[in-house]
Structures are given as C-alpha cells and as structure tokens.
C-alpha cells in the first residue's frame, strides 16, 4: 500500500508561539485598526487584528504575522527582540531632548500699532515706552540663553511689534552672536513682525545680520483687514507691499508668513490657501487660535468649536494636496510635523507637540521686564494675571534657579504623556505631546482631563485623518508627503524615485 504524505500544514506549528513586544492600538473606524509599537513602527490592519495578536491567534507565516514580526510587534524563536535596536530607535525619536533649551524668545517690547482682536500678546499702545526691554535686561537675557547646553540656538525676537524697539534689537544681535561664537554655538535669529514699521535701513540690517523674518498673513484682504485692524484699515495692503520689499532685500527664502484662524477664517479655507499661493509662499500653517491673551476677552469673534476647526482643516488640507498635484509645491506645516514623526525615525523640534513638553525644556521666553516664562503662552497667561508659569527673572535668578525652582519642577511633572491619564494608552502617544500650560489655561489643572480636552481632540482627529490618508497607499500622495518632510519639491522626489 503506497504511503500517503500528510499535507504541508500538518508539519507547521499548530498554535502561534510568539511573544508580544510593547505596542498600543486604537480603532480608526468600523473597519480598521491602527497598531503602533513603542518606537513608532505602525500597521493599519483590519478590525480584530489587535485582539487576534494578543490572543496568540495569528497564523504563523501569514502576511499579517510576517509584517508584525518584521516591524517588531512580536518576536518568536526565529527572531530576536533586538532590544538594542529598539532602544536606539526610541532614543532617536526623543533626540529633541538632547541639548535642552534651543529656542529662546525675546519679547523686546509690548508696543504695537495693530489692534488684532485675537492678539495673544496683550499688546500695549504706542506711547507706553515703559514696555520696552531695557538694555541691561537684554544683556542678562543673552547670558541666560548662553547657559543652555544646546550647541545650536535659535533666538526669536518678538513683541508687540519688535521693530518698534529696533534699538534693543541692534543691541541684542551683535552681543548674542559674539557670545555664541565664543562658546562654539551656532545661532539662528528670526524676527516676528507685521513689517508695518519696517524701513529699508531696518531690512538691510536684517539682511546683513542674516536674520529671517516671520510675518503675518491671515488671507485675502477682506479676512486680513477684518482680523487685524489698524488706523487706515490697510493692514493687508501694507503687509503685501512690505513682504515684497523684504523679499527684494533679504531674499525670498528669508521671509515666511503665518496665519491665524478666526471665525471668519473658518468659512474661507480655500481663499486663504489661494492667497498664500498667489503671494508665492510654499508653506502654510493651518493652526487654531490659542486660548490666551486678548483672544480670551474677544472670544465671541475668535472662539469656535474645535469641530469647526477640524472641518476647516480637512477642507484646507484637501485643497493643498490638489495644489501640489497641479504642480505647485505647498506644504501644510502641521501635517508636515506629524508626518515627520510618523514616517521617519525622528522626532521634531516643534515645541508645541512634544513629550516631555517643550515648555522650558526646549523653549524659554524672556519678557521685556526680565521675567522668564516656560512658553510664549505662559507669558500670555501672565499678562492676564496668572503667574503660574513664571519661572523667575533674569535680574534676580540664575539659570540653575530657573530650572530647579518649584514652577519648573511642577510643570515637568505633568510634561510626559507617557504617564498622563488617557495618553498612556493612546496609540498616537509617540507622535503627540503634552501641554501643561494649555491644560492649566483651559481646565485649571496642569495634568488635564483628556476627554474634553481641545488639545487632545484636535491632535487625535488630525492624526486619524492623516493615518487614513496614509493607509490609502496612494503613491502620488505619499510622494507629496515625502516632499513636505524632506523640504523638497515633488519633482525632486519623483526624479529620485526608483523606476
């Protein structure tokens, strides 16, 4: 009687014998789940995969099994957990911590000639000279900045309107450059200005000192002028004229623009984006208004439900992608930041979305009076009477006093989303961050309550949206995303793509 061989399946393991590696998951929708491991490797899989994975029901040799093993969600007898590799990936994701405080914001004056109702700076009127940073305070602030161990610093000159205190800028810049050179540190300088008071001399100075300009452009004239009233109601016209002038003197690449979203803006995402294209910009940051400063007092004009913002964002992002498909390079900055975290091994230096939170650890604010704050938003809270996040004063506190004082230590204790309720189980944890200042401002508590948190809702919904787009596996869309991440053009990405 001839022998009959058993089928191949009879010789494989009858049950999956694998061990789990750390991961988190969530449901993207009724059909799909997102699994993310401890170092940011992710899989979008059919609903039920996480359950099958945990219950050891995956079929060895199946595509799902092999993918999860390759991406270090599981390990079995044929693979090593590669702990050193995982540790290296984890450290790489958190490399933004190295060097400590890199971004130093100097509020050189609170004076401003605009009356933007969303102003988070609580600007003072033009004739109040007491709101300029004194030269002695400026020098002590520069010294404090240089105490940071970071080898590459960014000095951001803010206000009010910083060009109104140009003498202070002219005092700070050469001093900061001299000190940085002496300590072997690299130094980038940027000034955030509405450009309304920018003379040619000022612009030539900025060019000669290699200082970049960041200005505000809220959209076409009817939006920009409505958001940013000034005497003559010509903020838009002045802004456009001055952007062109600045570009001519400094160079196109040295002038960037940021928009602020108000209730009026929410109704016109397409018009705002088209304005940025018309003006030749290649990036736009669709961001919601923060709940600080005058924005709180004028909430009727500026406040909106976060769902309205999310609708605005999705519409805007779709339009931006279409613009890219038509051949014009335009990156959406928030998507770019999140996509960098998702699709590369790296974290980012964006201080508003980090864990531990960027407050103090990656950014410090030096107010015109020498007070030191953990973030720009912390300073805005102080202008509203809340000094919770005032870390000290350059005239009375040393660098050590600032970073070992009670305000900073309290802040840091609520800074890691790995240990925050709600965040500790979240699949987006590694791509997201924490914001104790925002939690305190909106909920009265640095730790915050996640379910009603606008911070949580906004980031979670945008990340779900982006993961949904990634899971479509559209090659053209992925090339657009990679062009944003690499600051390249789509053409460069396509030319570099293998045939």
């Amino acid at each position, binding site marked *: 009687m001839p022998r009959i061989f058993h089928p191949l399946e009879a010789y494989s393991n009858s049950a999956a014998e694998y061990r789990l590696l*750390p*991961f988190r998951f969530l449901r993207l929708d009724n059909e799909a789940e997102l699994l993310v491991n401890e170092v940011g490797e992710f899989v979008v899989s059919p609903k039920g995969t996480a*359950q099958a994975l945990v219950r050891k029901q995956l079929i060895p040799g199946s595509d799902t099994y092999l993918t999860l093993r390759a991406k270090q969600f599981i390990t079995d007898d044929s693979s090593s*957990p590669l*702990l050193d590799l995982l540790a*290296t990936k984890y450290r790489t994701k958190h490399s933004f911590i190295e060097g400590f405080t890199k971004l130093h914001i100097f509020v050189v004056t609170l004076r401003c000639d605009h009356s933007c109702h969303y102003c988070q700076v609580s600007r003072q009127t033009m004739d109040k000279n007491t709101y300029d940073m004194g030269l002695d305070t400026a020098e002590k602030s520069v010294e404090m900045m240089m105490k940071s161990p970071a080898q590459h610093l960014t000095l951001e000159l803010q206000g009010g309107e910083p060009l109104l205190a140009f003498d202070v800028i002219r005092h700070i810049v050469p001093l900061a450059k001299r000190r940085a050179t002496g300590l072997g540190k690299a130094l980038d300088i940027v000034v955030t200005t509405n450009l309304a008071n920018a003379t040619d001399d000022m612009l030539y100075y900025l060019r000669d000192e290699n200082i970049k300009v960041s200005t505000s452009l809220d959209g076409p004239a009817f939006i920009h002028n409505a958001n940013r009233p000034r005497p003559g109601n010509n903020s838009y016209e002045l802004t456009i004229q001055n952007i062109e002038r600045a570009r001519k003197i400094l160079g196109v690449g040295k002038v960037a623009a940021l928009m602020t979203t108000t209730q009026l803006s929410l109704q016109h995402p397409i018009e705002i984006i088209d304005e940025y294209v018309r003006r030749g910009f290649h990036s736009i940051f669709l961001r919601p208004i923060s709940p600080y400063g005058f924005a709180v007092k004028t909430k009727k004009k500026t406040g909106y439900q976060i769902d309205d913002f999310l609708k605005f964002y999705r519409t805007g992002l779709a339009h931006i992608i279409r613009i890219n498909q038509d051949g014009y390079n335009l990156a959406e900055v928030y998507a770019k930041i999140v996509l960098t975290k998702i699709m590369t091994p790296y974290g980012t230096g964006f201080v508003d979305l980090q864990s531990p939170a960027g407050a103090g650890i990656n950014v410090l604010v030096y107010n015109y009076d020498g007070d030191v704050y953990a973030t720009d938003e912390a300073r805005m809270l102080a202008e509203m009477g809340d000094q919770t996040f005032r870390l000290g004063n350059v005239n009375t506190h040393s660098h050590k006093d600032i970073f070992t004082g009670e305000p900073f230590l309290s802040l840091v204790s609520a800074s890691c989303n790995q240990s925050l*309720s709600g965040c500790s189980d979240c699949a987006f944890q590694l791509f997201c961050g924490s914001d104790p200042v925002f939690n305190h401002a909106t909920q009265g508590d640095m730790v915050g309550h996640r379910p009603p948190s606008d911070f949580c809702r906004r980031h979670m919904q945008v990340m779900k949206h982006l993961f949904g787009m990634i899971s479509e596996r559209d090659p053209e869309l992925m090339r657009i995303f990679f062009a944003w991440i690499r600051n390249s053009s789509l053409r460069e990405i396509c030319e570099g793509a293998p045939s």
Partner: protein
Amino acid sequence: MSSVDDSFGCEIDSEFSATIRLDPRIYSKEAILKACYWSSNIAYIHIPEAPDERLVVRIELKQKVPSLENPKALTIGEFVPEFCNSLLDFELRRQVEAETASIRQLILAKAFSESGVLEDEPVGTVVDPVEEGAPGSLVQIIKADLNN
C-alpha cells in the same frame, strides 16, 4: 422604562441611563475604570458596591436635550455598545501591558543608559592608592603639572 439587553448584559433604565453588570473574571477593574474615564465627558458614571461578584457600572448621559453645540444627542442605545467596545479594548491593552511591561522598561533603560543619563560617575578614583601615595610616582608628577 426598563428593559434588559442580554447581548450586552445591561439593563436600560431610562432614555438616558443604563446599568451594566460585568464579570470580573473577564473585565479587570483597571479596564473598567479606564473605559469610564474616557466616557466621563459625555456621561456620569457611578460604580456602586454590588452584593454579588459582578461589577456594576451605572451610566447616565449628561446631554438630554439637543443643543447648538451638539444638535444630535447620543442615545443610551448608541452609547452602551460603544462603551462595551471600549471595555474590550482596555482589557486587551491591560493584557499587552502586563505581558510587555518588563521588556518596555528594558528598552527605555537601554535607550537612555548609553547616553550616560542614568549612569552616575563612580565614586572616588580608579588610581592605585599605593602608586598615588608614592613620592615621585607618575600620578604625583601629573598632579603637580595640573596644579601649575
């Protein structure tokens, strides 16, 4: 109004409230509390002492009438199945965490140990004390050189 929905092991007490009885052999307290935490924005959750072995979760929806912010209020019939899904998810997460906690700690410890963050410098010196004390020794020469 009270009806028993056997498929979820819950009683619908009213248009806006329900009671769910959970078997602690299947759902850990941790998973239940986490699911309740995430629902605390839209529902009041009460976990009373139960006479039998089961864990009881009493739910009352916060929004009972449509509002401008939320014109379509969630019904208890829509909320309970989602809550039960959430329970399952958190129980799975608890299992993952239990199985992977030690390896996770190892990854984090390794991640920061190589940067020297977690390591303290050894106390004292590694110099041979006999050599160090001997006059004319190399250690003495180097020390004198550093002090000059």
